[in-house]
């Protein structure tokens, strides 16, 4: 299996982030080729479509299709945004791309801007990414010095200015329209869609927004060809993907491997479940995705379609592994508390529902559960799901519903006995 061949392709080098090292693996060659040979944007767009690249920010939307929504010809300002907010618990891949290979992201953004006809780009980093921010500032400075950014890039007549902007520490600012509001200097409140950013984005102008990993994959796709990339993964699941595996494994971390790799193989790479414990449950795509029993996961491949068939989603590729000693009530309480704290408060079901589920689960965890609580919980989750402005509503509802679906008995035990089943068994 090939590791670290796309976003992490400089990882093996000393100081992998330097411009020199990036160039040594073919960095900025694609950009130069495109500009020198005046390759028409439509050709590149076609390549991206063929590569089957899908969004790495959570929703897995086909990138080529997204790019084709922006009407290139319209004679107005358009924007490109890179989403490095990376707030989803369990996810830490974008951070490593920024730290290890910032120039590849920049090259990817310039190429995307060229395809989309945008002359201004924003790179939005979450507020806590101070080191990554500085590294990106340095990289952008170098790119300007080399003439890759700015006006008349490499004498081609193409302009692209790129700015890093730091968030202020709100998970919701990873949601694309909240992020746009945040760049505009407003509260990070998601917008109602439609209109979508492609029509009404930053400052009301057409905008394309992609995840860091998505954009950083572009130069490699163009270097090795769309077919090569598509064949790394399965059908409609092109490329390789960085999986951030965490929880009860021996070697947690980021692993860039082809999509479609069986979960069990990744688990092996990560050193297996710790302390020789048995695997109980896995959240395969960041904490907002439905949890799956460990046994189910062992049979599943890591790609968009397989996971969705198994009843969850690939999400951001953050895999949280829980061993047999995990209390699922406590695990859910931790998850919902996070979403309770992070709800932006704009729409009623999420604002009120997140507090309600959190209090209810904590009450059950504390041994104060009552008969009927689980039905109530289910009811609240259903009342949030599909009723909110942004997908944050699902991020609360899905964990609740999936935990109840797969581990209901544990919750019932808590209510009935007023204490934890797992703890009781250990005793």
């Amino acid at each position, binding site marked *: 299996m090939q590791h670290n061949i796309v976003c992490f392709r400089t990882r093996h080098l000393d100081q992998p982030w330097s411009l020199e090292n990036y160039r040594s693996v073919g960095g900025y060659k694609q950009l130069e080729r495109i500009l020198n040979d005046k390759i028409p944007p439509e050709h590149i767009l076609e390549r991206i479509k063929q590569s089957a690249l899908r969004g790495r920010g959570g929703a897995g939307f086909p990138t080529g299709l997204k790019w084709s929504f922006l009407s290139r010809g319209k004679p107005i300002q358009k924007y490109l945004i890179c989403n490095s907010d990376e707030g989803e618990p369990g996810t830490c891949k974008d951070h490593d791309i920024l730290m290890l290979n910032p120039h590849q992201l920049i090259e990817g953004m310039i190429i995307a801007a060229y395809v989309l006809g945008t002359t201004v780009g924003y790179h939005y980093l979450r507020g806590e990414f101070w080191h990554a921010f500085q590294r990106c500032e340095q990289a952008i400075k170098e790119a300007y010095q080399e003439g890759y950014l700015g006006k008349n890039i490499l004498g081609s007549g193409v302009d692209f200015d790129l700015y890093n902007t730091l968030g202020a520490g*709100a998970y*919701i600012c990873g949601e694309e329209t909240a992020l746009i509001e945040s760049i505009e200097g407003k*509260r990070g409140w998601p917008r*109602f869609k439609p209109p979508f950013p492609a029509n009404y984005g930053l400052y009301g102008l057409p905008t394309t927004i992609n995840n860091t990993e998505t954009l950083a994959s572009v130069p490699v796709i163009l270097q090795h060809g769309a077919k090569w990339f598509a064949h790394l993964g399965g059908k409609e699941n092109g490329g390789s993907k960085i999986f951030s595996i965490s929880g009860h494994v021996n070697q947690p971390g980021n692993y860039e491997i082809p999509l479609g790799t069986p979960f069990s193989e990744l688990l092996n790479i990560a050193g297996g479940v710790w302390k020789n414990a048995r695997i109980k449950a896995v959240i395969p795509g960041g904490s907002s995705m439905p949890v799956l029993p460990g046994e189910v996961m062992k049979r599943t491949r890591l790609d968009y379609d397989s996971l969705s068939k198994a009843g969850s989603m690939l999400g951001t590729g953050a895999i949280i592994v829980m061993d047999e000693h995990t209390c699922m009530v406590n695990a859910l309480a931790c998850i919902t508390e996070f979403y*309770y*704290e*992070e*709800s*932006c*408060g*704009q*729409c*009623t*079901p*999420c*604002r*009120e*529902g*997140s*507090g*309600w589920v959190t*209090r*209810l689960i904590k*009450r059950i965890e504390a041994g104060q559960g*009552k008969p*009927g609580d689980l039905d*109530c919980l289910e*009811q609240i989750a*259903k*009342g949030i799901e*599909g*009723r*909110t*402005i942004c997908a944050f509503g699902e991020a609360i509802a899905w964990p609740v519903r999936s935990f109840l679906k797969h581990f209901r008995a544990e919750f019932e035990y808590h209510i009935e006995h007023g204490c934890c089943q797992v703890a009781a068994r250990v005793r």
Partner: protein
Amino acid sequence: MIKFEIDGKKIQAKSGSTIIEAADAAGVDVSHIPRFCYHSKLSIAASCRMCLVEVENGRKPLPACATTVTAGMKIYTKSHQAMQAQKEVMSFLLINHPLDCPICDQGGECELQDLSMGYGRTSTSFIEGKRSIKDKDIGPLIATEMTRCIHCTRCVRFCSEIAGLRELGILGRGEHSEISTYVEHSMQSELAGNIIDLCPVGALTSKPFRFKARAWELRARAGIAGHDCLGSNINIHIKRESDSQPERIMRVVSRTNEKLNETWLSDRDRFSYTGLYHADRLARPMIKQIGKWQETDWETALTVATQKLQNVIAQNGAQAVGGLISPNSTVEECYLFQAWLRSLGVPHIDHRIRQSDFDHQIQSPLVWSTCKCVQSLEETTSFLLIGSFIREEQPLITSRIRKATQGGARVHVINPVDFDFHLTLTNRCIVSPWGMVCSLAAIAQVLFGNDKKKLNIMPKPIAELIRQQKPNTVEHDIARDLQQDKAPLILLGALAQAHPYFSYLRVLSETIAIEIGAKTLHLTDSANEAGAWLATALPHRRIDGVSIKEPGYNAKAMLAKTLKSYCLFGLEPTYDSAYPELARTALQQAECVIVCSAFKNKAMLEYADVLLPIATHLENEGSFVNIEGTRQSFQRSVNKPFAEARCGWKVLRVLANFMGRPGFDYQTVLELSSELSRNLENDLQSEHIPPVDFKPLPTVSDNTVWRCGYWPIYRNDSLVRRAEPLQVLTVEQDLAKLRLGAALATHLKVNNGDRVSVSSDHPDAKPVTLQVLIDQRIADATVCLPSGLPDIAINGPLSVVRITT
């Protein structure tokens, strides 16, 4: 038009409409879609989720307020899916909402209470603790109970979109979000009270009305607001007489009129009622007997008034009497006032108490310029505003202009102070009062300065003035923009009207308007200026529109000439007149002063002989003519005005009867109104009047200092001056300080906080001592000192003053 279905009914709507708009427009045919955050006048938030409906083939329920209809769409507002969604949203809204309806002022008119009857459950599965939020002090008008807030953000959107001032926002996140002013302070917007109407729950309620009455104890009567020229429609809420309290007006709320106030109301119109029962209110007729005031009955008071007035006329002739009426009086009152005085032979009648320059009056049109323009303000793309603190003078007209600027309209101003309008201005000429005239002349010069023919047919001094100008870049810009615009609008405000060269401003702006195809509009600062003109409460025109050969004295001359007797109606001249100093002297020396007024004041008790209590506009009956020329009639809201007070028209009729004048036999205000309508409809045509001479240009030296004395928003008439919650809001700039720019301060060698004396520019003017406040918003050679303040009697709101240090 798009065809689609709601609940199986075939509906049509304009393309681009949202489901909720289409359903509301379809009216009773379609069941009401519940909503909280949606408001037809505000941007779409789509956040409360109460309006979720089912759309055929939709994956999930969609918010009706934010989803546009498409052809053939099938919408279900009462299907299982829709009802399920609505009920669940309702239960989310209720879990943290306090169950304090019995002590909540909103009870009985609460949207949450109403909808929870239809969508709420009778029992709750919520047994966790409820959140509570600290209340905020946002000033004397609005009480807060923030735990009740349901985060619909109507108030927040109102402030930024309509009031133009982002005073409210959301602090915190998620369940901890709260509406707040960031740093705690009183809301400054002159439209703030609207958030009380907007708040669907009891989070924001009226502070003055708090705990005074329950909604169901009140009776609503339609009325017309009386503090600016828009004529906003209002509902007056009255509590019946009880054992403990006579009938009382408890509050005023807005009544929708899309053409005028939409659903809004200014705070002045909403809260002025709080002045109604002030200690100054005249309860009974009063007469002064050998220097002592005593209350009496109507009969006696009218007899005394008749005798006194008839005595003066017998001894000095009717020429010795002057009549001044407030332009806030009804058309009927204005009509009867002039008819009564004219029947006695009195020639001096006027309502223009704030005007300084009456030249050219004879050529002015029969009605103060009006046009059907309020709604179209929003479509206007270029405005020139001359002499107006428009945000305080006309709060709701300003919000229409604000809306126009949000769509890209340009607003240019010529003002003596750089007033803050809470909207984006394109160009500003901040110049002294005389500079205003020059700026306008400069704009005229850019437009047609080289056209000898045009200048030759203009009045000499004006042509001369245009020739003298050297337009600067701002004036060039303004002229060009007006010229390029399809239909610019020139607005003259209260400061233009009070200007000592008003006739110049008027001729110049009309000439410019003709040149560029613009409209001009006078924004008068009273409720019925247009009506007072129509009813000829004027010295120079008869009710049939014909000019009087030898007109009587105008408002200023009447005071300057110190007559033997004055009849005042609805006025406090020492506050309301442009010439408070002249007014005090003139009234003080007069033998007989008869005052019809709702309120008394200290000066009035000194100069008056008879006080006749009248109704305020909230208790009155009659009509006002607004800026659009629309005559809006209103009936009495209360069974009878306060205590022994009477509607003004009745008092005037009886005065005429007592003095034996024939033809004053009106039994009802309707009779009077219809006679008046006949008169007014008689196709009044101004006869041709030869041009008159204009006064010469003033001599302005380097040392000339002008005053800008606008009437602050809450000092504008006797009722608002007594509305205590509004008085609390009087901001620092409206206080009795002498504000001036740094350049003038250097020239005069004064500093912030120094005390200087100011007086009118005539030898025996009494100086007033004031503190200096340096303020960069004031034009060069200008000081700002508001009018309508107690103990500051300086003549001429925009005239030359003398300052001694």
